[in-house]
């Protein structure tokens, strides 16, 4: 197990190195001149050559590209993530200030998805092709298709009309005022959680149905156990593994989706910061935030893999 853990960690580290390299290639090399990326073609043309040289040096962009890349990695290792081109704050401050809100939304969304998805999936699998099953499946198909950011907009709009809701302008952290913080994060978390819950209910339904068809379940029934015990205690634990895996994959949707959903709710989280940075072409910020999202995604999926090996004694990785 420890060997497997070590190997998995090395793999993840290599992948992340590749991730950082591709971010670097996308943001620094594809546009040709990074100043064109920051200022746009017209803005770039309006500057004097001397200005260009000064700004490039200021941003550390005049070094040779491989050196820039190495410097970037060195800075990350040292915990310095560079500065926004347009604002004074460093990327680390940005993450520390806005990160917790987005993290809360993500974790809460995960809770919602299991809290809603799993019971619905179990209910569906209990009586396949019944009316409740049909309703549950129709709803899950619908929730998979509805874009989260649109649902978010509609919720905001409805609360504007009926409750005089105001979009949160300032960040209220959990430790400052839990109730106000909850009001900020609950909307995005619900929207994201329901969409993931739809996938989870679908997945748990089909996995349960598959397991219920197996011999040991028939044995349990033959022993005269109640159907509830058969499903909950014998079938469910065996059906959960793929559901855990898909939860790790779904995190990608949560991370990506949260960017748009935060925008819809006007939540000043990390996703909003990324969007603003992309629109302003603030490449230092974009480069670090994109890397952060990818790191979270990769690390969580490694954890999912490990939990898989831990939960299923049949799987023993050498």
């Amino acid at each position: 197990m420890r060997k497997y853990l070590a190997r998995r960690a090395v793999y993840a580290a290599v992948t992340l190195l590749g991730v950082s390299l591709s971010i670097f290639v996308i943001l620094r090399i594809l546009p040709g001149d990074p100043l064109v990326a920051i200022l746009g073609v017209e803005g770039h043309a309006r500057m004097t050559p001397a200005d260009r040289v000064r700004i490039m040096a200021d941003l550390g962009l005049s070094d040779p590209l491989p050196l820039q890349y190495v410097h970037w990695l060195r800075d990350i290792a040292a915990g310095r993530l560079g500065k926004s081109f347009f604002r004074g704050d460093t990327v680390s401050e940005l993450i520390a200030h806005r990160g917790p809100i987005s993290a809360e939304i993500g974790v809460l969304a995960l809770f919602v998805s299991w809290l809603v998805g799993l019971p619905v999936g179990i209910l569906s699998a209990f009586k396949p092709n019944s009316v409740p099953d049909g309703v549950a499946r129709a709803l899950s198909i619908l929730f998979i298709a509805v874009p989260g950011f649109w649902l978010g907009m509609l919720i905001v709009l409805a609360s504007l009309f009926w409750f005089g809701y105001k979009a949160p302008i300032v960040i209220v952290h959990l430790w400052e005022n839990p109730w106000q913080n909850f009001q900020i994060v609950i909307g995005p978390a619900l929207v994201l959680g329901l969409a993931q819950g739809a996938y989870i209910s679908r997945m748990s339904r089909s996995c349960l149905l598959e397991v219920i068809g197996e011999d040991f379940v028939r044995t349990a029934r033959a022993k005269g156990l109640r159907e509830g015990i058969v499903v909950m205690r014998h079938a469910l634990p065996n059906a959960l593994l793929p559901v855990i895996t898909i939860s790790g994959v779904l995190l990608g949707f949560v991370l990506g989706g949260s960017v748009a959903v935060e925008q819809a709710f006007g939540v000043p989280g990390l996703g909003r910061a990324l969007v603003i940075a992309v629109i302003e072409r603030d490449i230092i910020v974009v480069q670090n935030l994109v890397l952060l999202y990818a790191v979270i995604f990769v690390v969580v999926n490694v954890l999912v893999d490990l939990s898989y090996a831990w939960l299923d004694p049949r799987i023993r990785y050498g």
Partner: protein
Amino acid sequence: MRALLVELARFSRRNTLSAVGGLVGLSIIFIALAAPLLAPRDPLKADFRRMNKPPDAQSFLGTDQVGRDTLSRVIYGARTSLFVAFSAVILGTTVGSLWGVACGYLRGRFDLYSQRIMEILQSFPDLILAMAISMAIGTGLQAVIFAIAVTRIPFGGRVIRSVALSVREMPYVEAGRASGASALRIMALHVLPQCIAPYLVLATTHLGAAIVIEAALGFLGVGVPPPTPTWGNMLADSITALVPPWWLAFFPGLAITVTVLAFNLLGDGIRDTLDPRLSPAFLRMMAGGRRG
């Protein structure tokens, strides 16, 4: 032609929902193609005497902040959204699939490195990768298509690679190798045809995702630049108002949802038909019923 109709009839009898999805999808494609005939007004023409009007007899879905007709913009939006989604999915899935065939057939070091690259591509959340790419190469129609296409490559690569891996062990492929056919010839003539069905499944199931990513990019202001009407752009326009008019927020999103729903249902049905055992009947149908 008759065989095709019989296949289609059987498909829709078994998968009624996805047949409905297919029909709705076809009508949306029709609406997109016939937009100039169907749209009651010019989608770009501002009318300052009719700004922010709720739905009425003159404009069925209301007008926006500068008096453009929402219905016409939703209809023209179908054009952009579908064009981007179709091009991106076809481009991304095709590149990914060809790459996957090469990986699965050639194996070895090429496969190993390619899989690492796919892994790296899949380490990014889709929307975030698309945002970064379209930012880097400039937000135009082509940039958005390219950005979404890149996010689709690893899916094609993974799925088709596994198909190619199993096909390469088939006796007829071995026979081809034994009779001295080159790797390129075997891949093109013997492995590739086996990948058509999974390719179709992949392409249809990813259409919905591509439409949502395109809309999200537009919504975030990094997609196809305005004034081109796209569903995402319209949603982005609507939230700039302090109190967004409900018709501006509602109808473009409804269009996205219906379209995604239709293509998802169609994709589910096609997957159910093709995935368990790749049915020869459907393959014949897709190959134009030449042998049937």
